[in-house]
């Protein structure tokens, strides 16, 4: 139990209590162990994003409990949730991950500034992460001067520089071509394997699912299947 990073119990999320209620999640039990990469799959509207948001402390369940790294999210106030997101969760969204007026390095530094990391350390860590992700030469550019794939990789750098217990990515490859998607996935794979960062992704993309260590299929707000991949595609 202690190496569970995410533990959702009988989680229900209903949107719009007046008029027609949409039951986005209906009593989902979902656990993620440390070091896993779980890919949430399923048709559009099945509740992937909803579940991801609940796990990341961006939304609250209508019913049920969510525990992240031992913290019961239901008990946390708005600002405590905000702090949890800042300190324990790294986010990579589909788009608009970066602050347009800051350069790539500054974007990576920014989150450490929010955390209150010493200035000297900040720059060093930001440069080192960009270096490890092969982004050193674009560090000074602003997001507008980067390709979609580069932007997503900078977003990954931003998400992992704080060494979060959990990395969440919602359709990270939606705006990327397949070659760039493969690069991004290789990066996530390395982060997952080498750094032991736990990852949860929500995606339609079979390539993304192929890279995960576990595939959770959602349908109509319920988990339909949950399988550990014996031989992830990236090994082939």
């Amino acid at each position, binding site marked *: 139990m202690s190496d569970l990073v995410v533990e959702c119990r009988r989680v229900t999320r209903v949107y719009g209590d007046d008029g027609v209620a949409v039951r986005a999640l209906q009593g989902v039990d979902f656990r993620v162990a440390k070091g896993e990469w779980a890919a949430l799959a399923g048709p559009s509207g099945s509740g992937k994003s909803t579940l991801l948001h609940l796990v990341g402390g961006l939304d609250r369940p209508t019913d049920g409990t969510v525990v992240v790294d031992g913290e019961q999210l239901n008990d946390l106030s*708005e600002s405590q949730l905000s702090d949890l997101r800042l*300190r324990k969760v790294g986010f990579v969204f589909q788009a608009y991950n970066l*602050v347009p007026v800051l350069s790539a390095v500054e974007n990576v530094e920014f989150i450490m500034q929010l955390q209150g990391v010493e200035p000297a350390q900040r720059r060093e860590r930001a440069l080192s992460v960009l270096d490890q992700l092969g982004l050193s030469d674009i560090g000074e550019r602003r997001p507008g001067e980067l390709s979609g794939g580069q932007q997503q990789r900078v977003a990954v750098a931003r998400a992992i520089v704080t060494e979060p217990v959990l990395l969440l990515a919602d359709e990270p490859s939606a705006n990327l071509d397949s070659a760039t998607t493969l690069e991004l996935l290789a990066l996530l794979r390395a982060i997952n394997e080498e750094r032991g960062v736990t990852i949860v992704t929500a995606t339609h993309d079979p390539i993304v699912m192929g890279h995960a260590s576990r595939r959770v299929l959602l349908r109509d707000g319920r988990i339909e299947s949950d399988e550990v991949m014996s031989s992830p595609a990236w090994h082939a």
Partner: protein
Amino acid sequence: MKLTLLVQLSWRNLWRHRRRTVILLTTICVAVGSVLVLNALLRGMQMSMVETAIDNLNGHFKVLAPGYLDDPGITKSFELEPSGIPGLSAEGIRGWAPRVRVPAVIRSERETRGVQFVGIVPGSEDISFLGDVDVDGEYLSGPDDRRILLGHALAEQLETGVGRRVVLITQGADGGNRESGYRVAGVYDAVGTGIEKAFVFTGLATVQDLLSVDAVTEVSVRLTEEARGPSVLGDLTNTFDGLDVRTWQDLEPQAAMMHEMADATVSIWFLIVMGALIFGLVNTLVTAVMERIRELGMLRAIGMRRGAVIAQVVIESMITMVIGISTGVVLGLLGFAWLAEGIDLSAFAEGLELTGLRPELVPQLWAQDVFLVVVLSLVLGFLASIYPAHRAVRVQPLDAMRR
């Protein structure tokens, strides 16, 4: 440390739309600059009016016998110690002038006019407009001078001039008429023709002789500085127990009212200009927030606190105001320096004489006014950011992903 981050972010965001920001800054700059220049002009006008009111034989304070204002005449007079004003400390007082002022009729060979006949101590009149008045002919030599000084406009009406004789008739303390002839020593030029037509001057002792009294009807007191007013007023009231001590505002209620109106005009102008400006600022800030909804949602999602989002908008507003205000103050100072020599209004001299304004308007820029404009602008800049900040903080973290 977090603040430097927010300042940096706000600063960069401010320049995201260079043109919009430049237009906004220019507007603030021009508004602040124009408010300061207008302020300086109004102050100049205001002070010129006060100077005129004080110069026109009022002084800051005037000591009068009770009832003189309702029924001026030698019966409403009082005696002075030969040594001057007893027991009054000289501190805060620039000078004082005793006078006998009585209503009289002046007659030349051709015309007759009603005037105020005023006996003065010429050497003491440096506290009034007589101190540096332009005189054709000669100024009075002393309190015993038996000649008279009359205004240019009156001399024209009477068709008389320097060296000619006129007759003055007034009423003695006993109610009987006193009449005497005087030679014109000089003809003076005052700021308004009203003054020139109203006052005929001679030596103090000359009028006292004519009326067979030792008394005076008024003592004007001029301060070294306005701030001394209250303490000197207290001293005067004690010293001249039983007499009336009036301020220039009591004596010139119209000038006093215009003085106060100038204050109000400055504030109203400031509020109108700044009100329009703040409207523009709020508008720009709201637009900037709406443009950045995704970014703000993303920042909130990755863990930026609500307070930091609010601070970001407030800082952006304050940076805008600080730049706009400082360039505006520079603009205002330049405008002031350009006008500092004074503006020649002699083209409007006729109209101005009625208001008691001098034909030259010298602007005055007061540190306290600049300070007030700066502080109020900053406060308004802060207030202007409240609503946009509120809009920004309403953005939910999930908004970043939905669109």
